[in-house]
């Protein structure tokens, strides 16, 4: 199974009465960008910490690049770059000095420092102390630190933290390029589905310490709810009509008065004909796909409701 870069099996972490991560099984393949999504406190960072050996699992195991992560393991980390939670650096050292330290510890030639400074757009700040950097540039420095050794695997926890919209687009393009051109495997966590939806090949959703979805992003789109959005002069009468004639139980949306009918797009002509024939003025009729955010909220709420007590 040489193409499996991360394999977590039955991975669990308990802190006293709190089950932070609960029997996670997860596989990430070479060259894949895996988006790990969850609300704050869902267990994303705890999982990432177990991947990196920063904390020890209560149960289960993690295999990174073919090596089981246990105390004392270190060779594999020459092939892994990471950023966990907040971007941190030595505040009294400059950007260049911080990167030079990382470069040494990763066993890289010092020429890698200039290369990564250029790649991450840090040249202007190379001689500035890390403590004087903006939040966004600290994040760039942390990303530079993670990427300096040209790792095969990048594990990034909330990599867009603190970046402005331009920075987010740049980092997204950079990560996509690393995956597409250099075959770097990227595991990134976020609580922003939009960010992950645009970048990841595969997505895992963690909620209350459990993986509740794990699928290709293309499949995610297939799972979102599709509705027909109908704007009509008398929405209550239209709703009654749709229920009576076509069996759709719909109520006008409180905010915009629109009807969201759980129908397929090809049913649109039939619905339009029904409403027009009934003398209702149709102001809008278009298909609507549930946003990824709405989908995420729906399934995490469903997971919360179905959680055994």
């Amino acid at each position, binding site marked *: 199974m040489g193409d499996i870069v991360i394999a977590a099996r039955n991975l669990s972490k308990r802190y006293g009465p709190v089950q932070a991560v609960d029997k996670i099984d997860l596989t990430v393949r070479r060259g894949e960008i895996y988006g790990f999504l969850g609300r704050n406190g869902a267990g994303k960072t705890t999982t990432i910490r177990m991947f990196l050996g920063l904390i*020890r699992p209560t149960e289960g195991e993690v295999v990174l690049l073919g090596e089981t992560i246990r105390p004392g393991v270190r060779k594999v*980390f020459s092939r892994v770059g*990471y950023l966990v939670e907040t971007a941190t650096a030595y505040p*009294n050292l400059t950007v260049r*000095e911080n990167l030079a*330290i990382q470069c040494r*510890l990763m*066993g890289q030639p010092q020429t890698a420092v200039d290369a990564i400074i250029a790649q991450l757009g840090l040249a202007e700040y190379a001689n500035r102390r890390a403590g004087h950097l903006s939040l966004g540039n600290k994040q760039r420095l942390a990303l530079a630190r993670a990427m300096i050794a040209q790792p095969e695997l990048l594990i990034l926890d909330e990599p867009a933290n603190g970046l402005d919209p331009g920075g987010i687009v740049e980092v997204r393009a950079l990560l996509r390029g690393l995956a597409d051109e250099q075959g770097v495997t990227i595991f990134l966590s976020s609580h922003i589905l939009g960010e992950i939806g645009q970048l990841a090949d595969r997505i895992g959703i963690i909620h209350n310490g459990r993986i509740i979805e794990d699928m290709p992003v293309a499949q995610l789109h297939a799972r979102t709810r599709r509705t027909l959005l109908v704007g009509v002069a008398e929405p209550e009468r239209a709703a009654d009509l749709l229920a009576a004639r076509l069996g759709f139980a719909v109520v006008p949306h409180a905010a915009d008065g629109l009807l969201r009918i759980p129908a397929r797009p090809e049913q649109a002509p039939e619905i339009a004909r029904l409403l027009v024939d009934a003398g209702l003025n149709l102001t809008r009729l278009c298909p609507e796909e549930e946003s990824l955010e709405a989908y995420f909220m729906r399934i995490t709420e469903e997971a919360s409701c179905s959680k055994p007590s």
Partner: protein
Amino acid sequence: MFKTVLITEMSKLRRSPITWISWLGVSLMPLVSGLFMWVVKEPDRATQLGLLGQKAQFAGAVADWPGYIAMLLQALGIGGTILIAVITAYLFGREYADGTIKNLLALPVARHHFVTAKLVTALFWFGLLIGWLAVEGFVVGWLLALPGFDLRVILPAAGELFLIGLVAWLLTPAVAWVALWGRGYLAPLGFTIFMLMLGMVVGATGWGKWFPWSIAPLFAGVAGPRVETLTPGSLIVLGATFIVCAVGTMLHLRYADNMQ
């Protein structure tokens, strides 16, 4: 790999505020001791300058080289133990305070190298500071024109300064361990002050040569009558403390969960 880690630790230290803070702390020791000697030597002028109350006196204090050296040794016995603890607490605690500890733990470097490199860095810097203390102490004593100058007294005293420094350094793994446990600076500093106070009490009971935090003050002549040489028992206690705490620190870094 140890050499690489040591270089990185040295470069981190070089740009740290602890370097000039600790240098300032050490530099004050000969200045304060020298001032004290001058007051003893020139009580009338000190009184005129308001440095000495009319009725104040320093019972038994003699303004000469042996008296001055004894004062420097005492200053290092307490001040040096605190100072090396501050340096060690900084070297280990900063990784938590700056949130950089997580950046050290998933690298192709054995974690125990960070412990040894930090301890060696502390020893190196503290050694330089004691060297500076010896030079500055000599210059201050010379400027004061203290009587009783004798190389047969001064040269062994320089050796004793380094020996007190070494004894204080042997206690640093305990400070490091507490810094990891407490995830910052405060716990190790509190620990050191508490242990030094305890060391003074134990020293006064006569059991001081068996208690690690009494040994340096006893050797410096702060906690009761000065012990001229370290007994084998004291050396064993110090060695055991160093080894147990160094291994404990390494195991902590290897096995404890890092939540930062």
